[in-house]
């Protein structure tokens, strides 16, 4: 028997958890951690199953995906015949995502046991929704066609909405949740349009299998297809918080840190990347789209990184870095696809993107969760009130250091390998389009910035003198349920990169059209990497960044204030803190433009349209009152009217009668 046969069960278990905890658990789990055990158990089960399935897929990976689907809607007859399927589509990419999602998810739920302990009543809601999220996220990963993917895509959005607004009595949380939903909704609309294009273009079939095998069967020409893929990418932009739809993610930090770790770092925001990677066979047909993707990715990477430079909120910094890292992935995928269009041998981009996706999931989850541990300890997210915590939170500080090194891209930590690949892909693009010079530069600078702000974060938090004595006194190391997951993640954050040496690329790439992975052993790859000058460039960038951070926040050799003192510096840092005015811009559009038009419409409705109706009726009644006054009550006036009437009728008869 094969595990894949049972893959459809993977999303079911967490769903069961959701139903049980959410609807049956009312008083059942009052003093049972709000049903946490069930959530954990079910997630764990699906973890085991997905590991099995993934292992199977990766080892026996011949490149042909495992597909299993049942007809959801069948419409035939007339000129409209189409079928929507619900099913699972398992190839190596799916396997990768399965591992990432279910693994991180499991650790996060376990971690929550400690982190959410004080929440009391609300816990049940938390565990219910997070189980639902895990379920639908796994469903998204397993989806076998675009429509199904879109359905789960929307549902993860819902869960994100619910969890960002978990502390819904906080106005800030409520509005952040709304913002997240609306901004991603804009992306979703583009996604829908993309779906329409594909649906019509492929004669009502949205199955991956069909589309990937018959890309040429698309009706409507390449321009239309380009438009369609662009729209699909639009969806990704929304979900993965890319420029210009990035602004919801920092606000999303209003949710519990566990949620930020799971949804807004490790899994959901990856859906966009996954979408692009998934629809690669279609996308590569449209190099223009790929170029756009690469550019948006590259720009977002640096754009978001800048905002992380001077932010003092520990979670916000991580949020910006998430945006920036996602940019990396899009840069890689875009570049790879763009090059592929000209030279169908090139697969570094695709590998880099997906590889970085995996690594980032691990180290970013790690970073968030350790940040959570810190917050849990000092009950604040403001780094200005931290400092010197490494004495109190030994484990946390250690694992977080690993995370920082990893994201900064210091060999041999995992981040290094994937980021290096990303930059390589971007660089490779130069020979096809000079725009990639810029993008490569972006990538390099981003690497520098990343290293800088991550270590700025670390130093501010753990090193130096405690800046808030009171908080420091009460700070204490997280309980085992929290640090054990951290430790596990730390191991991965350190080690997951080595997958590269042991054939990540060659296992992942097959099945994607006619990619021909160059089979290579670890040694060759190692030499390949370390004989490449680019590698040293990126390492240098990282080291520089760390060094600067060290000088500024550890040694205090360079006073940070210097950068903000000058008028230029001041305005610059304010601009950064104001997120380049995007927040204001969104509010302005929402409140002034949209709400303004709404008010106008309302006015038209009440005054003009309804006014007309009421006016008519009022006029009729008034004329009635007027006419009745003619009825004076004097009989002779009636007689007079009669006589007049007779003469009028004579005249009328004469006029219309056509007599004589």
């Amino acid at each position, binding site marked *: 028997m094969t595990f894949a046969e049972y893959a459809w069960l993977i999303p079911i278990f967490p769903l069961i958890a959701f139903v049980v905890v959410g609807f049956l658990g009312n008083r059942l789990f009052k003093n049972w951690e709000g049903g946490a055990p069930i959530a954990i158990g079910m997630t764990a089960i699906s973890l085991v199953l997905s590991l099995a399935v993934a292992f199977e897929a990766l080892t026996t990976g011949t490149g042909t995906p495992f597909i299993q689907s049942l007809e959801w*809607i069948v419409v*035939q007859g*007339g000129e409209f015949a189409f079928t929507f399927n619900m099913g699972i589509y398992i190839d190596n990419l799916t396997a990768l995502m399965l591992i990432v999602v279910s693994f991180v998810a499991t650790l996060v739920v376990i971690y929550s046991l400690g982190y959410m302990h004080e929440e009391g009543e609300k816990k049940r809601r938390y565990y219910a929704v997070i189980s639902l999220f895990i379920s639908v996220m796994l469903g998204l990963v397993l989806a076998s066609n675009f429509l199904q993917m879109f359905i789960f895509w929307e549902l993860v959005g819902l869960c994100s909405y619910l969890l960002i607004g978990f502390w*819904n009595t906080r106005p800030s949380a409520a509005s952040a949740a709304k913002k997240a939903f609306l901004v991603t909704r804009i992306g979703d609309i583009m996604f829908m349009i993309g779906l329409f294009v594909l649906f*019509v273009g492929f004669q009502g079939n949205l199955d991956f299998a069909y589309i990937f095998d018959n890309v040429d069967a698309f009706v409507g020409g390449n321009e239309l297809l380009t438009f369609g893929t662009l729209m699909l990418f639009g969806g990704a932009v929304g979900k993965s918080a890319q420029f210009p739809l990035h602004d919801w993610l920092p606000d999303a930090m209003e949710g519990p840190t566990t949620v930020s770790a799971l949804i807004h770092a490790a899994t959901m925001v990856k859906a966009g990347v996954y979408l692009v990677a998934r629809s690669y066979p279609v996308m590569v047909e449209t190099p223009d789209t790929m170029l756009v993707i690469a550019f948006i990715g590259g720009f977002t990477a640096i754009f978001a990184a800048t905002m992380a430079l001077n932010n003092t909120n520990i979670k916000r910094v991580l949020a910006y870095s998430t945006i920036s890292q996602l940019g990396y992935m899009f840069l890689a995928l875009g570049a790879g696809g763009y090059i592929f269009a000209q030279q169908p041998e090139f697969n570094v981009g695709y590998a880099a993107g997906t590889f970085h996706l995996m690594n980032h999931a691990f180290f970013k989850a790690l970073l968030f969760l350790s940040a959570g541990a810190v917050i849990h300890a000092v009950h604040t997210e403001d780094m200005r009130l931290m400092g010197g915590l490494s004495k109190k939170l030994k484990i946390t500080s250690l694992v977080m250091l690993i995370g920082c090194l990893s994201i900064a891209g210091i060999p041999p930590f995992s981040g290094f390998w994937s980021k290096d690949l990303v930059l390589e892909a971007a660089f490779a693009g130069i020979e096809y389009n000079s725009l990639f010079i810029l993008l490569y530069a972006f990538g390099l600078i981003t690497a520098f910035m990343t290293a800088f702000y991550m270590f700025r974060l670390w130093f501010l938090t753990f090193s130096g003198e405690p800046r808030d004595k009171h908080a420091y006194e009460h700070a204490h190391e997280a309980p085992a349920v929290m640090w054990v997951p951290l430790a596990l993640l730390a191991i991965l954050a350190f080690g997951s990169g080595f997958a590269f040496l042991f054939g990540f690329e060659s296992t992942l790439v097959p099945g994607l059209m006619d990619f021909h992975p160059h089979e290579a052993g670890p040694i060759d790859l190692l030499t390949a990497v370390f004989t490449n000058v680019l590698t040293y460039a990126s390492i240098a960038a990282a080291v520089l960044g760390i060094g600067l951070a060290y000088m500024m926040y550890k040694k205090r050799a360079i006073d940070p204030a210097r950068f903000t003192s000058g008028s230029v510096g001041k305005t610059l840092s304010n601009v950064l803190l104001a997120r380049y005015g995007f927040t204001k811009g969104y509010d302005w559009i929402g409140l002034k433009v949209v709400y303004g038009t709404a008010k106008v419409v309302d006015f038209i*409705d009440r005054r003009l349209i309804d006014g007309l109706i009421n006016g008519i009726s009022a006029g009729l009644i008034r004329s009635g009152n007027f006419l009745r006054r003619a009825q004076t009550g004097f009989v002779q006036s009636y007689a007079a009217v009669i006589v007049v009437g007779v003469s009028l009728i004579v005249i009328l008869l004469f006029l219309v009668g056509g007599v004589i």
Partner: protein
Amino acid sequence: MFENIPILSLLILFPLVGAIAAFMMGRSPKAAKYAALAFSAIPLALSTLLLTEFSLTGGFQFVEKYQWISFLGISFHLGVDGVSITMVFLSTLLVFLAILFSWDVEERLHQYMGLMLVLEVGVLGVFLSLDYFVFYIFWEVVLIPMYFLIAIWGGVNRAYASIKFFIYTHVASLAMLLGIFALFFTTAPLLQADGLIPADAIGTFDMLLIADVAGGLGEMLQIAIFGALFFGFIVKMPVVPFHTWLPDAHVQAPTAGSVLLAGLLLKMGSYGIIRICLPTLPEAAVDFQLIMAVIGVVAIIYGALACLAQSDLKKMVAYSSISHMGIVMLGIATLTQLGIAAAVFQMFAHGLITAVLFMVCGMFQHKAGTREIPMLGGLAPKVPILSTVMMMGFMASLGLPGMVGFLAEFMVFTSTYDAWGVWVLVPIATVALTAAYYLWAMQRSIFGELTTKIDTKHLHDAYWFETVPLAVLLGLIILFGVWPAFMLDLITPSIPMVWPLSGVI
């Protein structure tokens, strides 16, 4: 097994009997309540039976035909196809739940229940009849109970709202009547020529017979007739600018009244277009395509924007109905079979969803004493069930996948893209607007700090007779969202008959 049972007549008969019974029970209103519940449960059972017995093919089933007034060729002609059966099921369901939901009505209870059942009679008649004259009679019969429901159990401004509703829609119906007679007389010679009616007959009101020959009419005549009928229907739907009766009626009507008004009465309009305008006068429909599309899109956007500006929760929901019925209109306007099927499905979906929304509004009125969003806030912890239901309802209404509304909208927009390409951007943009006003409303009403403007000490969460209908509705919303095939398989086979011309784009 039901060949010899006049199941459709029974569908109409039972509520009628129940209504009379309820009116009689002035002595013991409580009994009237139970009687009404029973007599609305029977049709529900019957229609469910119908769903199971219905064979998944086009064409009319369970047809009954009795001569009524031979002088004018009027016959009591009933039948269901895929389009009407969904509506029939919806009607019986909503009336039953609405009666249950108004379990705590005290004032003139027996009359209230009686009127509910009369309303059911009218609505079912409209959805079942295949004779223009009978159709029109039921169409008008619906007005009376709704008028009383608003005028007697309505809000402060009920007098204005009720009479406005009555006259406004009555004018529209009369315009429709003109159209019907035009059809009646102009088709008579054609029918006689084909020997479908005796040569000495004045004509016939049989929809199917008329549909057979109406294509033979002159184009201008077709357009004129279509226009008259169409006007009658769009006022009922309603579409901008003939919609202003709707918000007033909704805001004033009692909760159950609003549920039925939005859930069923609005559907009568779109149903009329699908049942009468399209199959009978297809060429004219093609001429009207652009107009239909434009008013559909306008209704969608206009309604959504108006929602955003409302401070009264119920008024917002009322405008959202306008927006969503605009989607139905757009689906019809595509004049593709996919679009029309989607429109029907959207009608069904909207019926279920809007019922939930109006019940929620009613509960706010009932418990918090106000529906003004600025007065509310932070109620979620106080009334968890109500808040959950509200959120689910709103999510369903903004087209969240997994709920019934999503696929309907998706199919409509798909066919819109199919028909007009990227123009779909215009209507689909409102998907974001819709989300905006719903989420904003939730943020201000149930999230945030607890309001101090109203007394939240004694807020009572949903009672059983409120929870049960809502649970049923939400259950169905999710069921048909996860398993839409059930409904679509009923609907789609009938669509080619509704729209004989293949997709005109």
